[in-house]
């Protein structure tokens, strides 16, 4: 059941030009960054050779690529998730789901899974760039995997926020703006508390956790942060759908 909902979501996504445009534009921008980083690397290479334990290709090309990817995702995810539930509310298709023998949990998980399938394609597409470096050089596979993990967790978190805000309104644009706003806030929430390292705002900040993983430091605190984050917003979405039947 969850899978049927997810596959329907993916099919509808690819029927609209939005998904293709998002994939194409992000790929173009990230490819640009990728080439710029490689260029930088060639310039820096002679100096690096004189250093002891100098940063390698993974640090100088892949890590910045992942950092930029996370910023691009911050902008793109709300656009992809905005229609998840709000469009169904607006067009009335939600009545099909509501009058079918499916639980609200199944609806939410199906939609979430559908969006994750789409973004898995995104990750696959992005991953081809750093992986292509294997042709000419050695990479730190561990760090590379950590980078992918960070991107995956970020997407999973972004989508859960987008899904929740999409369930709150029947206007997709409002959902997009609100998700972008909330994600950006969570991204920069620790700026005021830059000095002290362990306060609440630092812990809440998304970037704090994803950066650590991109650097190759996989800490259970960070993983748990992401899991709690995702579960919270999925739970809120289920609750929201439940109460939608009561209030609308």
């Amino acid at each position, binding site marked *: *059941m969850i899978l*049927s*909902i997810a596959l*329907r979501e993916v*099919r*509808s996504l690819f*029927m*609209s030009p939005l998904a293709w445009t998002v994939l194409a534009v992000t790929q173009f921008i990230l490819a640009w960054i990728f080439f710029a980083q490689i260029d930088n690397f060639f310039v820096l290479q002679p100096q690096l050779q004189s250093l002891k334990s100098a940063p390698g290709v993974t640090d100088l090309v892949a890590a910045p690529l992942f950092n930029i990817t996370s910023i691009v995702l911050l902008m793109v995810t709300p656009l992809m998730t905005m229609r998840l539930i709000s469009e169904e509310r607006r*067009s*009335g*298709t*939600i*009545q*099909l*789901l*509501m*009058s*079918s*023998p*499916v*639980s609200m949990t199944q609806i939410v998980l199906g939609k979430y899974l559908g969006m994750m399938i789409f973004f898995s394609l995104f990750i696959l597409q992005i991953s081809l760039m750093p992986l292509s470096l294997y042709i000419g050089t050695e990479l730190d596979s561990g760090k590379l995997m950590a980078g992918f993990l960070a991107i995956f967790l970020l997407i999973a978190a972004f989508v859960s926020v987008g899904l929740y805000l999409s369930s709150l309104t029947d206007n997709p644009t409002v959902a997009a703006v609100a998700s972008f706003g909330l994600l950006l806030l969570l991204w920069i929430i620790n700026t005021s508390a830059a000095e002290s390292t362990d306060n609440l705002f630092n812990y809440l900040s998304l970037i704090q956790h994803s950066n650590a993983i991109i650097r190759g430091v996989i800490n259970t605190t960070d993983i748990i942060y992401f899991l709690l984050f995702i579960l919270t917003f999925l739970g809120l979405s289920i609750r929201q759908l439940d109460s939608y*039947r*009561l209030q*609308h």
Partner: protein
Amino acid sequence: MPNTTMSTTLIKATGINRYYGNTQVVKNLEFELNTGDILGFLGPNGAGKSTSMQIISGSLAPDAGQITINGFDLIDNPTEAKRQLGYLPEQPPLYKELTVDEYLIYSAQLRNVEKHAINDALTKAKQRCGLSDVGNKMINNLSKGYQQRVGIAQAIIHSPAVIILDEPTVGLDPIQIQEIRQLIIELGQEHGVILSTHILPEVQAVCNRVQIIQQGELVYHNDMQSLNAENQSSHTTFTFREPIKPQLFENIDGISATELLDAQSLNISFSADTEKADAAHRQLLKIFADQNWTLISMLPKTRSLEQIFIELTTSENSASKPSETAA
């Protein structure tokens, strides 16, 4: 009376209430639906028809009340209850970017149709709704009438016990309307159908039971058979060229009531007893002849569904009228 004893109760709704903010849109709604019933749900715009349909279909929660569908409680056991249900909302819930086949298969999956049965269900639903030729077309490219049919196909693909159709013939051309009505009659033979509409001839053409809702309250319910029977024993309007003397019609056996409309015309209601009514007719003709009145027209008036509808929905305090207890 319909033969309710033979059939099973599919829907039993008791004490349904629903508020939007402070306005109560559904007041203490109560009704039953049996197999073989096609129940016409009538009401003027904004009377609470669609809200009631949404509540029965489980897409809107009532503030109070209980609904069981084929024995399953919609609130305690929503999954089982909804499995018994096919629902076409006012606006068909179509994913317009999908093809008809993709959409109907998805609907079947949502309704737990087993994998091996999906193909059969799809073919049957398409055939019944006249969609066999458009399976590969994108729903967005179909005309309004075809989209409406896809909406109906979606509601019947899993052969549910109860089919709820909210204004299914809106936007269709007369031929399509005929086809859809035929389809509804067919569906009514195996399933229970609730048909919400404000088109009265539609109810008379398809339904075997009717109920009228006004300001959220059920003000009338009856089965079509007794409605038609009632119609027969109604009044006749006599119109003359000359002014008439109504007192001449008093005290005639077989006339239950007279009502003077203007100087030249009056309504006469006859007794339900055919023999007495016939005698009264004969006596009337004698009076007309004796008085040398010129009878211009003699119109038997039946109390049609339309009249009942207008009477119930336009009177100010229709809310206080007790509903009839037939069915």
